[in-house]
């Protein structure tokens, strides 16, 4: 594990991000709240520990790049970007209001810190691969992290891209699946199982790890292993719990959730108690 990061500090950052998620989704009463809560530790570990970036110079060519390809999981994404300093935290109040750049599906009109416009699922991995190949040619040490949804892995383009990343041994690429086991119409097993996912990715040429995606230490260790892996791209199956951090929401396996004000305020109270 990367010793320079205090996991306790990261945990409180993750809780702060979760509070933002609740506050952002509460006004409309609907949205991707449990997905945001579930992925909060992936975002915290990447943006606040693993990746090298400069919020004052988001286009810095030697930055590590993080691609959120499930571009609808924006409450947690925007909360992370704001807390990391890419734009004012106060802007989060405009989430999904008319005229705001903080749309449900993120687009790069927000700024260069949205590394690609990925609302159409399955495309972001290819873009990251293009960047990873260019970085190698240009002699840059940058790393490329792609947060993909589990349901999104049903898209054919993911497998075109994975085939190429494996065949070319792109060891500057780290493909993370936020494995919360839910897609639009329900549990993945009912729609289209990815199993045996680890075997599949292994056979595509990836160095594979499976971790608890809500365990910050485990995530940081996995990134360390990925960084030290040479000659192969890395795949991290990060098993996340939807609604993580808010007891009443944990394990509620809906893609879209009604989020009435009383649930929002009890969720807020629960998270505040953890700080």
């Amino acid at each position: 594990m990367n010793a320079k990061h205090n996991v306790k500090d990261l945990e409180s950052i993750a809780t702060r991000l979760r509070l933002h998620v609740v506050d952002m989704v509460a006004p409309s009463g609907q949205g991707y709240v449990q997905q945001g809560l579930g992925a909060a530790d992936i975002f915290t570990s990447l943006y606040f520990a693993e990746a090298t970036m400069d919020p004052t110079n988001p286009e810095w060519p030697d930055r590590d790049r993080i691609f959120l390809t499930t571009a609808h999981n924006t409450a947690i994404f925007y909360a992370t970007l704001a807390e990391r300093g890419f734009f004012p935290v106060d802007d989060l109040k405009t989430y999904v209001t008319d005229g705001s750049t903080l749309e449900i599906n993120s687009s790069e009109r927000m700024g260069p810190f949205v590394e690609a416009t990925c609302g159409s699922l399955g495309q972001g991995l290819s873009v990251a691969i293009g960047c990873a190949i260019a970085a190698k040619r240009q002699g840059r040490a940058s790393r490329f992290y792609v947060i993909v949804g589990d349901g999104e892995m049903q898209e054919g383009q993911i497998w075109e891209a994975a085939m190429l990343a494996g065949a070319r041994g792109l060891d500057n690429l780290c493909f993370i699946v936020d494995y919360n086991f839910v897609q639009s119409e329900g549990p993945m097993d009912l729609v289209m199982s990815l199993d045996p996912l680890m075997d599949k990715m292994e056979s595509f040429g990836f160095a594979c790890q499976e971790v608890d995606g809500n365990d910050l230490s485990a995530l940081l260790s996995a990134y360390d292993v990925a960084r030290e892996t040479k000659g192969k791209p890395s795949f991290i199956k990060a098993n996340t719990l939807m609604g993580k951090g808010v007891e009443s929401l944990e394990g509620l396996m809906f893609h879209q959730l009604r989020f009435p004000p009383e649930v929002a305020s009890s969720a807020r109270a629960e998270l505040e108690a953890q700080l």
Partner: protein
Amino acid sequence: MSDTLTQLEAADFINRSFKPLPRSYGDALLAAAHNDPRIVALCADLVTPTETDRFRDELPDRFHNVGIAEANMIGMAGGMARSGEIPFCHSFCAFITKRVLDQITMQAAYPNLPVKIVGFLPGVATLLGVSHQAIEDVAIMRAVPNMAIFEPSGPEYHAAMVKLALDWDGPAYLRMKRPETTPDAIEPQSLEIGKGVIRREGRDLTIISAGLCVSEALQAAHTLAVEGVEARVVDMASLKPIDQGLILESAASTGAIVTAENHSIIGGLGSAVAEVLMDKGVGLPFKRVGIQDRFCEGGTTPYLMNKFDLDAVAIAKAARGVMQKKKG
């Protein structure tokens, strides 16, 4: 094994030619790449048919055969363009437009990146059949914001295509045809973005054409001249942005327009010209020569151009029709 048995190049098969084919586009791209280190080439496993074999051999670290995976290729090109490179992506017109429209719109056009989409086998021009024909690609690509579309009338303009693609800051679609024989040396007029080229002057009507139909239009104009009708022939190599000024001036000075394209009559050059005229309230005798909202079939290009009424005979017939309306 006999020494005379060698690998059949895909391009040979496609063109039914056993002679080494010219690479007027590929050599121009390679020359540009030697001058500009940002240029890279991607190809979805159609290297020789897209004239990129010399690029592959001379600049191997800047050439990526991504396998038969066009969607991934366009996404990768987006990533490379975001990293300061100028990627030229290669396949057949049918696959590099219709199959990957979503990827093109989201990873090239919306971010307005310099991703150059280069297709070969335009319109009906292939033996390979309906699966490999792109008769609606211009219509589709024309509707994509930020996208420019350029189509050469022949190999004499292939080098100019590379230049136009580079002159356009954003994404561009080149609708190419691999020459089957070395072209006669002609003096190509320079091409510019948003400018048509008058290839023949005439006062009685204007034939606005693109791609393979330009030479057919010139032949038709020759036939018409014998009949006493003088046709202006415009080569609209810049399909988007289109030369509105030249269209309106041609309408005003000749009073009748025929469009001719190796593409469906829906959404392509003919539609683009009609849109310009209607938006300005210009009414005049007008006819679109093109594929009449139907699917085609494989065959030699002259056979198909004739069968689907895209050739000089069809253009001359359309010209006579508009001339009759003009007189009536």
